[in-house]
Structures are given as structure tokens and as C-alpha cells.
């Protein structure tokens, strides 16, 4: 089924999904529904906030994958920061909260820019604990942070996958128009 060979639109999606072309539309709808459901879930749970939506609005033709790019960068950095935090906290000679504060600050800024509300709140807790000079408190807060972070990461990955599929599915429609 290579009707679309002459067309600029790639027909690969159709081949990949293995679905007949006429079913592509249904797939697209399903994917869209899935994505919405997931987003709604994340918002309801307070994991994401409007900032994420703003990111989505920044996406356009020139940078269609903007959101996923940014989020991936964020994840990359966050993991580094979290690792640093943990190492600082677990350090034998606890140097002090200053360094941690810097890392934490960056982590907080990064997360809030993404729209990760829950993670940001967890950072507040961490900061409060560090202000109280409570190492245990910081440790607890760090764990919470890590947990939230992992959760968010998974969910966002899932979201991006759906979106990718949607793109594919959208591309697969074209062959139907011949």
C-alpha cells in the first residue's frame, strides 16, 4: 500500500502502525484522548501546573518538539542535581547547607520552569529543612524529591510517547486522501 509514494507525506507511519489506513483516524483520536487524560491526571494531582501549558504553547512549527526537548534537558540536569544533593547530604563531613542550597535553588528553578508543581513544593520542604539545619529533615525531603521526580519523569515520558504517536498517526492520514 504505497499509494502515497508520490506524495510528500511519508507513508511510513501507516506501515509502522500496521493498521489499515482507514483506521488511522481512529488511532489518532484515541491517542489524543489518551494524552488528554494523562495531562488531566497530572494537573489534578498537582504534579503539573499552568507553566507546562505555557510551554506547550511555545511549541510551533519551527520547534514542534519544543516541549519534549526542554523537558528532556530538564530531566538531564535534574538528575545531576539530585545526585549532587544526595552526595552532599550523605557526606561524612557535612560541609553545610550552602552548597546544597545552591543546587537546590537551581533544581527548584528548573522544575518550576517546567511546571512541575509538586517537585517545586518538595523543594520548598527541602529548603525549610535545610534552614532548620535538620539533616534528617533534609534527607527525608530529598527522598520525597527523588520519588516525585521519578514519578513525573515516567508520566512525562508516557505523554511524549503518546504525542509522538499522534504525530505519526496524523502523518498517516495523508495517504487516505488520494
Amino acid at each position, binding site marked *: 500500500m504505497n499509494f502515497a509514494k508520490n506524495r510528500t507525506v511519508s507513508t511510513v507511519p501507516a506501515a509502522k502502525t500496521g493498521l489499515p489506513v482507514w483506521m488511522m483516524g481512529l488511532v489518532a483520536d484515541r491517542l489524543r484522548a489518551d494524552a488528554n487524560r494523562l495531562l488531566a491526571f497530572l494537573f489534578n494531582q498537582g504534579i503539573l501546573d499552568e507553566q507546562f501549558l*505555557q*510551554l506547550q*504553547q511555545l511549541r510551533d512549527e519551527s*520547534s514542534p518538539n519544543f516541549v519534549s526537548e526542554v523537558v528532556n534537558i530538564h530531566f538531564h540536569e535534574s538528575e545531576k542535581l539530585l545526585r549532587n544533593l544526595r552526595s552532599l547530604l550523605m557526606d561524612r563531613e557535612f560541609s553545610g547547607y550552602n552548597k546544597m542550597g545552591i543546587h537546590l535553588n537551581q533544581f527548584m528553578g528548573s522544575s518550576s*520552569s517546567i511546571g512541575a508543581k509538586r517537585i517545586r513544593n518538595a523543594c520548598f520542604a527541602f529548603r525549610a529543612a535545610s534552614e532548620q539545619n535538620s539533616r534528617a529533615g533534609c534527607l527525608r525531603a530529598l527522598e520525597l524529591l527523588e520519588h516525585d521526580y521519578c514519578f513525573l519523569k515516567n508520566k512525562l515520558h508516557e505523554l511524549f510517547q503518546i504525542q509522538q504517536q499522534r504525530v505519526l498517526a496524523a502523518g498517516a492520514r495523508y495517504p487516505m486522501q488520494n
Partner: protein
Amino acid sequence: MSITSSSAAWKPADVVADQFPAGLRVLVVDDDPTCLMILENMLRTCLYEVTKCNRAETALSILRENKKWFDVVISDVHMPDMDGFKLLEHIGLEMDLPVIMMSADDGKHVVMKGVTHGACDYLIKPVRSVEEGDRQPKQSEDADYLSSANEGNWRDSKKRKDDEEETDERDDTSTLKKPRVVWSVELHQQFVAAVNQVGIDKAVPKKILELMNVPGLTRENVASHLQKYRLYLRRLSGVSQHQSNLNPPFISPQDATFGPLSSLNGLDLQALAATGQLSTQSLARLQAAGLGRPTAKSSIPMSLVDQRNIFSFENQKLRFEEGQQQQQINLLHGIPTNMEPKQLASLQHSGPSIGNMNMQVASHGAQNNQNNSSLMQMGQPQSSGQILSDTTVSHFPGRPSSMGQPILSNGMAASVASRNGISENIGGPSYNPVSQASSTLNFPMNHTSELPGNSFLLGSNPGISSFASKGAFQDVSSEIKGSVIFIPCYDIFNDLNQHKPQSWELQNVGMTFSAPQHSSSLQGNLHIMQSVSVQQGSSGQMNGHSRSAAVVSKAMFSAEDIKEHGNAQNINQHLNNLVDNAIRVKSERVYDTSPANLFPDHFGQEDLTSALVKQQVGIAPTANEIDFDGYSIDNIPIPSAGTRVSCYFRRDRGLLGFCRVCFEPTRIG
């Protein structure tokens, strides 16, 4: 992450372009790549050109390489290699760019630190872009952002963090100052031309702005100037009608005028004008004369006068005129007697300025008829003295009794007159300015019996001319053809900003005249000058040129002071002082009368100056011996002792504070 080259991504949201300055070149510095990317994207959506870098050092080097390239910098606070505040300092010092700090840290102390370090703004992450939600063209809301200075605007559009704590820190637009518009003589003339073209009734700022076609001038500038101008015209027309009843409104208009005018430089002039004696022209002249010499104290009054004149035009034309008329009378008559010691003293201080003023007044008076026109012209930038000759001559051809003439008549007049070719007699040295060697400055006051109620107010007002035609000047046989000298005062007056009291010297009188920026101010100045001259005239004949010169200079000085103080009274006082102590005309009155009387028109500044110079012969303010013989102005109210003058300070000059009590012009700052 190294620096990405900037790129202007023109997104389809062109509507945004209306609200934000597109093409704004932004440098973003943040060690967090996430933020960097998000910011970059957001700014691109706003159609800005974004350059991002993740290290402060890199940012600095970029900025140093392309010094003028960037418009604004956004920087994170906490960065590994350099503290954001340090970067802020560097940028502020080296490049003087607006810097916006941002951070997830919203602690008060940090934010305050940002503010104290000079950050334009402090954003809390996450940084939101307000225009995201306002893709629709929404001009009303953001219009004002854009209306004011540039870089601050886009910042306003960006939503701060939802936690909005940083909003207390914003001093964005406040740090971006709009340059004050200085209404120079040319500018004002352009303005007047435009107004006349459109018709004063139909003059709307927008149209005027278009007609003027001056880059950088905003509608607001024009609007405010137009308002002042309208007030001035009203005053002019009002003054001319009040020639007879000068006295009563004397004080009141003054006070009234001073009030609102206080804020204006030209207040003094206006006050003077209000008092009726000083025609704006004379004031202007005086001021012009005074302005020309920044160093001479006498110039101060001139400048004051100038300023007042200018403002008198603009603000309270009516009052000015009224006052002028009154003033003139006062000046003419009561100058010698009423001048309080203090005033005289101050007059003396201004010394030459009075002379100038006298000159101006004289010239002014001489050119009563032409006052208006010439006054206006005085506003033209006159290079010392040029105006005198040019404007005064041309303008006051037929001045009946140019008030100013008498002043100039004596030595100054001669020179002035010759310069201007104003054939009008300035009348004999009716003006006996205070000891200042303004002999020539015979304030035609003596002659100007009719101190045309400060008709010297900017030529635009026929009243002025009538004032000028008071006759005092006419009789002045002195060569001062009228306001030759005074014209320059106008210019000086106009140039509120420029005139420096210091530069007020007799010699410079002529020079100073070129300063005025507004013809209107000139008129105002003339008024002052006239009043001064009136004063002087009233105080008696100007004994010598020096005398008149002194008076004039004093007057000018006073005028300047007045301008400074926005108090005609001051000017009057100055004038009085200038006029040699003896001229104790109520400052207000003096001014009112003299300018109007003395400076019917623009007196050639040059002439005045030269005249003044010549006359400046040991101008020694004599106490209370202003004998304005021949000063036939009747109703010149003489300011009584104890007249309070308000002080005003020219902030931009940081100049004079004119003491309310001692009338001593004090340099401040």
C-alpha cells in the same frame, strides 16, 4: 552550553509586534539550560532577538565585544562561575544596560539585593510570558508599557512569577528616564508656526506634532506645551486690557500666578508679567541678557525673567499681562522708592543684569508695537546680541514708546538702537537703573507713561505692543531703538534650561539674549525686562549707560532669578535691585512694568549687550536712588517693602534659591 547566536524567529503572532518592541536584543544568562531554553523561546515569541549563554563570563565577553548591540540583559542570580549580582554590577558599570535578575529564590533579602545593585527588575522563576495569553491584539493594556521607554516595556509584559513577590522590587520604568524635552527657541517657533498654521482654535497636539515634524518629540510634549502656550496667550490678551488698573491685581495675580507657575521656570517671569510691569519681552530680554553670562549673577535674574517669561507665555498669559501693566507702572514710578534694601541688594548683585534688563526693557519698550512679534522672535536662538539687533530692530519699528527703549536709550540704547536700527527712541534714559552703569538704559519708563500693561508680552499679543507703546519709551530719545537688547533676553528667557544665572553679565547681556528658547518666553522675559526697565526708569533717569546696564542686568538677573524662582516678585526684586537699590519696585510690579514698558519688542541683544557693556561703568548699585524721571507710567504699583518672593530652584540647574526673606539669590548646588 555555549552561546547560541541570536535569531529572530518571526512567529505568526505578529499581533504581538504591536505590543512589544520587536527586535529587542536580549541577552539571557543562566546556568540552567532548561530555563535558558524556555526563556529563549518565550522571548522569540515576543519577536525579540535572543542570545543565550550559560556562563557569566561568556556573557560579559559578549557584551564587551558588542557594546551597543544589546538592549537588555536577563541574568540568573545564582550561577557557578560568577554571582549574578556581580555580573549585574559589571554590566551596569561598563555597558549601562538594563539588567533583569531572575531566580527561583524569592527571599526578600535577595530580591532587595538585586534592587540595590541596580537591577531593573527581579523575576521569580518560573518566568511566564504574559503575551502568551494575550495573543490577540490587545493594545489598550500594553500600550502604556510601550509608550514609555523601551526596554522596560517588554519586561512588564512578561508575567512575573505567580508568587509575585518580586513585584515590590520593580523599578523598571522608573529607572528608564525619559529625557526632558527642552523647548528651545527654534522648537518653540516651530511650534508656534505649526499652531498658527492650524489655527489656535483647532490646534491639537497631534496635528501640531505632525506639522512640526521633529524627531523624538512626543505628543505629550506637544500637548503640555500647547497648554502652556494657550494659557500664555490668554494672559496676553487679558493683560492688554488691563492697562489702567494695574495696581489692584498686582499682588493677587502675582500670587496667583506664582502659585501655579512655581513649578515652572518661567514662573518668575510670569509673575513679573503678572504684576504687569514687566513685559515679557523685557523680561525676556533681561533674561536673555542675563543668560548670556552664566557667571554673572546678574544673569540670574535674567534667566529668571526669561523663564518666567517663557512661562508667562504659557501659563498665565493673562495674569502676566495684567501684572505687567501694573508692574510697569510701578516700575516707572515707584522703583526708586520702593525698592527695599534687600531688593536693591539683590539687584546689585545682579548688577549687570539689570543693566541688561534695562537694555532689554528699553528695547522692549521701544518696540512695543512689535513686541509681540519680536518677542516671539526673541525666542529664537540668538547668539548673543544677534537677536538684539535682529529681532528688536525688525520687530519694534513702530513701537510707540517702547518701554524698553528708555532703558536702552542711554548708552545702551545707542548701541542697541544702532544695532537694531530701531528708530524708536528709547527715550531718554528714563531708566536709571541702580547704580549699575546702565546709563543708557534709560528706562523709557519715564516716557512710557503708558506702560502698555506689559503688552510686551510676546508679540503675539497686541496687548504687549500697546504696552510698549506706553510711550515711555517712545520718548526715549536714546538710541536704543527699543528692545534691541531685550530681544536677546527673550532668547535667554526662552532658554530656561540654559540660562545660567552665572553667566549673567552685562557684557553678556547681549549674548545671553540668544539663549531663549521660546519666543514666548522671550516675551515673558521682555516683560520682566520691561518691568525692570520700568523700575529703573521710574527710579529716575538712567544716569549712564552703565546705570541702565546695571539695572538691566540686574533686572535680567532678577529675571533669571525669577525664573528660577518662578516668582515674578523675585524678578521684580531683582530688577529692583539691579536697578540700583533705589528701585524698590515691588518685584512683581517692577517686572510687570518694565518688561512691558521697556521692551516693546525684542531688543537686539547684541545691542543691548554692547550697550550694557559700554555702560557698565562701575555699576554700583546705589541705594534707593533710582530716579526714574520721566518715567511717566502712572499706575505702576510699587511693591511695598516686605514683599514676599518665593523661592524657586531650578532643579536642572541646581541654581538659585531665591530667599523669600532676604531676596538674596542663592546659588544652590
